[in-house]
């Protein structure tokens, strides 16, 4: 304190002292960390889809590498720096990363003709395009002038063929298979099925015919079947507007496609779908029961010591760790109820469990239980804010208690209930720990909804955004390559949760402003 006075030298106005400033500093520090975290996630998550420039690096020793610079680190014991390049070409090099010492780099160029191909297998290819055509025609062909335009045309045609095949499968094949399942002796359907299969086979043959002759930066050649190529672009030749369009396309594909390559590439559509479906089921369960319990506690039950105890207990359950709910879900829902269901109804498939393992239904139920206290507390708060005069007025006019509740009290409490449900949804969307126990899959082979009876498959496993982050980041084969996608997934999850929370905050604020009443003491 004395040292502090020295700063002031007495003639300056009285100050609050160092501690007040440290308190202000802790606000600033929290904001800084929050901002930093959000910026990091947003930057890394969105930046991944930008078609970054590809460089060709020539080393002093004559090696040539093409790739994207990722980051730079100082070498051990201060001998200069080294830079990490993403070089792709897993099939040629056996790896996709190259660490190059910065001091040994002779030249860095940005040739416009470098292409990047996104492939179904082996990840990305970075190098040059020599020729496109039939397998025999391009064997050791001389470089074609129009290879790039031909490649684009062929890829567009392939996209059409793929869409056609998908349509055939969806509309021609699956109904026939279902028909045959129902009646195995239907010869007409059998013939139609054979025809459809033949057409799909033809399509596949048509797709398989052509290859691209590629050359890596150091001159090794490679025949790439075109049906394995998903997209191709030349980042160095693209204009900013072009890049922006490509970026938008990348974001869209991330949202709309399924994962590939062991979750390290592709999109997260099944995870979005699974998360939304689970949260929907959960809110269907949690809303009526939560409101019921809140109405009972606040309107029907005798307000005494016991009610208060129950209220405190329910409030405390909101603070019980989510993993404990997961344990409860595993023990009671999965092993208890699910096991019994299996014994009664699905005994023919035992010992492989149907309901006796984690699945959509159990996950939703567990999360509903987890978020029940949130809904109860929020609804109760809303009910308590409604002035007693409203209830008394209704009763004085001759309404019964039920009529007072359903016509006066509950309509006024709707925003509070909505707030509670939104908060519950936000919490459930971000909660992963219980799901580790009661049912998510690394890669769900089918989404839990399809055209087969009963359309919604409650026993199936599903994908979840939060679990996707955990799994890809910690159990993936190449975490480094999957990182950008994990960031993008994290950004998506954070956005969903934040938007939901903002809505809840807004609703609560609006509600308080409208009634402007004090809570009952």
């Amino acid at each position, binding site marked *: 304190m004395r040292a502090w006075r020295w*700063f002031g030298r007495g003639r*300056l106005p*009285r100050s609050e002292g160092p*501690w*007040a400033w*440290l308190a*202000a*500093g*802790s*606000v*600033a520090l*929290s*904001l*800084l960390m*929050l901002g930093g*975290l959000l910026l*990091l996630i947003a930057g890394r998550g969105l930046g991944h889809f930008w078609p970054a420039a590809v460089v060709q690096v020539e080393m002093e020793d004559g090696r040539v590498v093409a790739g994207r610079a990722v980051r730079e680190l100082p070498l051990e*014991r201060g001998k200069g720096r080294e830079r990490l390049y993403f070089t792709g070409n897993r099939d040629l090099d056996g790896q996709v990363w190259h660490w190059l010492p910065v001091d040994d780099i002779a030249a860095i160029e940005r040739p416009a003709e470098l292409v990047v191909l996104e492939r179904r297998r082996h990840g990305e290819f970075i190098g040059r395009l020599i020729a496109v055509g039939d397998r025999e025609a391009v064997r050791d062909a001389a470089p074609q002038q129009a290879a790039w335009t031909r490649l684009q045309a062929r890829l567009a045609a392939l996209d059409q063929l793929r869409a056609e095949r998908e349509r055939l499968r969806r509309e021609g094949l699956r109904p026939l298979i279902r028909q045959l399942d129902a009646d195995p002796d239907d010869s007409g359907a059998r013939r139609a099925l054979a025809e459809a299969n033949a057409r799909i086979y033809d399509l596949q043959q048509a797709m398989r015919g052509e290859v691209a002759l590629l050359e890596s930066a150091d001159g090794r050649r490679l025949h790439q079947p075109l049906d394995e190529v998903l997209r191709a672009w030349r980042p160095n030749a693209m204009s900013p507007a072009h890049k922006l369009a490509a970026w938008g396309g990348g974001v869209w594909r991330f949202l709309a496609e399924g994962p590939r390559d062991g979750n390290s590439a592709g999109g997260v559509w099944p995870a979005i779908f699974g998360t939304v479906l689970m949260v929907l089921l959960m809110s269907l369960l949690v809303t009526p*029961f939560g409101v*019921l*319990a809140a*109405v*009972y*506690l606040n309107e029907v*039950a005798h307000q005494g010591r016991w009610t208060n105890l129950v209220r*405190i207990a*329910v409030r*405390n*359950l909101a*603070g*019980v*760790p989510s*993993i*404990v709910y*997961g*344990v*409860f879900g595993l*023990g*009671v829902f999965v092993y208890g109820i699910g096991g019994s269901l299996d014994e009664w109804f699905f005994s023919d498939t035992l010992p492989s469990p149907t309901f006796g393992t*984690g699945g959509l239904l159990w996950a939703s139920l567990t999360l509903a*239980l987890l978020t*029940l206290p949130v809904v109860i507390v929020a609804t109760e708060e809303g009910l308590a804010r409604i002035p007693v005069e409203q209830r008394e007025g209704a009763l004085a006019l001759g309404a*019964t*208690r*039920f009529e007072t509740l359903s016509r006066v009290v509950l309509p006024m409490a709707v925003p509070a209930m909505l707030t509670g449900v939104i908060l519950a949804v*936000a*919490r459930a969307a*971000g909660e*992963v*720990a219980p799901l*580790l*126990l009661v049912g998510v899959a690394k890669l769900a082979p089918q989404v839990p909804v399809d055209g087969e009876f009963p359309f919604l498959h409650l026993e199936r496993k599903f994908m979840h955004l*939060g679990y996707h982050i*955990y799994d890809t*980041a*910690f159990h993936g084969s190449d975490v480094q390559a999957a990182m950008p996608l994990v960031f993008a997934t994290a950004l998506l999850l954070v956005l969903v*949760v*934040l938007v939901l*929370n903002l809505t809840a*905050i807004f609703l609560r604020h609006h509600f308080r402003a409208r009634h402007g009443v004090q809570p009952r003491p």
Partner: protein
Amino acid sequence: MIEPAPVSPPSRPLWRRQRDRLATALITAGGIGVIVAVLAIGVFLAMEVLPALLGGALDSARIRMSLTPMAWGTLKAAFWAMAFAIPLALGAAMHSALFMSQRLRSRMKPTLEMMEALPGVVIGFVAGLVLAPWVERHLAGSLALLLVMPLGVLLAAAAWRRLPSAGRRRLSLARAGLWLVPWLALLATLTLVVSPGLETRLFGGDLRGWLDAELDLDYATRNAMIVGLAMGFAVMPSVYALAEDALSGVPGRLGEGAHALGATRWQTLWRVVLPAAAPGIFAAVMIGAGRAVGETMIVLMASGNTALMSLSPFEGMRTMAAGIAVELPEAVPGSEAYRLLLLAALLLFGFTFLVNTLAEVVRSRLRRRYRWLGGSP
């Protein structure tokens, strides 16, 4: 003579009354059912574990062997998280309750509520895969940051006193939470730029090696410090919100009296408001500790999950929550391992439930005291 008023026919037809009774009965049954279902969690865990525990099916030596490291890890993680969260949360709560303008405060609270809503898996991912390797590479810089941040704030305060009064008004203490942000960001950048040079001069360019040689501290990439930082970040908003409620709930006339006697705002806070709100702050810390003990994903992703029992903040640990998450799906129901993990869950449940109940009781007492102090209507 006045005629007696004619007896009015029953204003509520029978079916209305019956419907009312039926609805009330249904609500009662449903409400009680839901509450029982929610409370069943504790009952289930106790029923699964206690018979085995009391009947001797669980060997006490086995329990000690497998649960002690996890309990140790849990406490260690919670300790470091709280060591990080408490100063930050309480400082922020004090500042926003007593120094900020009403307008700024009403913006500040939702912002920090957002922070609370960030999913644990995202924080854990950033802590485990981005922060941990980064801190390992910039160990000296990161440790220096811990020192530079408070000093930087004090430096800013000293500089502030030299400003002309117009500048002092613009950059007032009430808004210091905002204008200190760019200053701290600048300082952090400077620290990180300067620290490699300092590291070379002081520790021979290798702080990790120096720690190992001089202090015998082993540095693991994912360690208690990282977990403390990440979990402190996750726990801090809820501690802040509760402590802020307690501080701003103190009746205004107490503070006004102190001001009238010539106390500065900080003196008022420290001598008058803080003692009055102390139970509420205690409750806030307890609830924060309860959350830190049970947090799963952050620990799972940022702690390295090694069942070590060491005091060092630079080594990893395994907590009960993470242990349950990793091992329970593989444990055969009814086996000893299964029951042990359920016992861990019961311990977690019991601990958090007790802590939260304690906090809740303290808070409700405090509210009564405020009403009494404030002479509430």
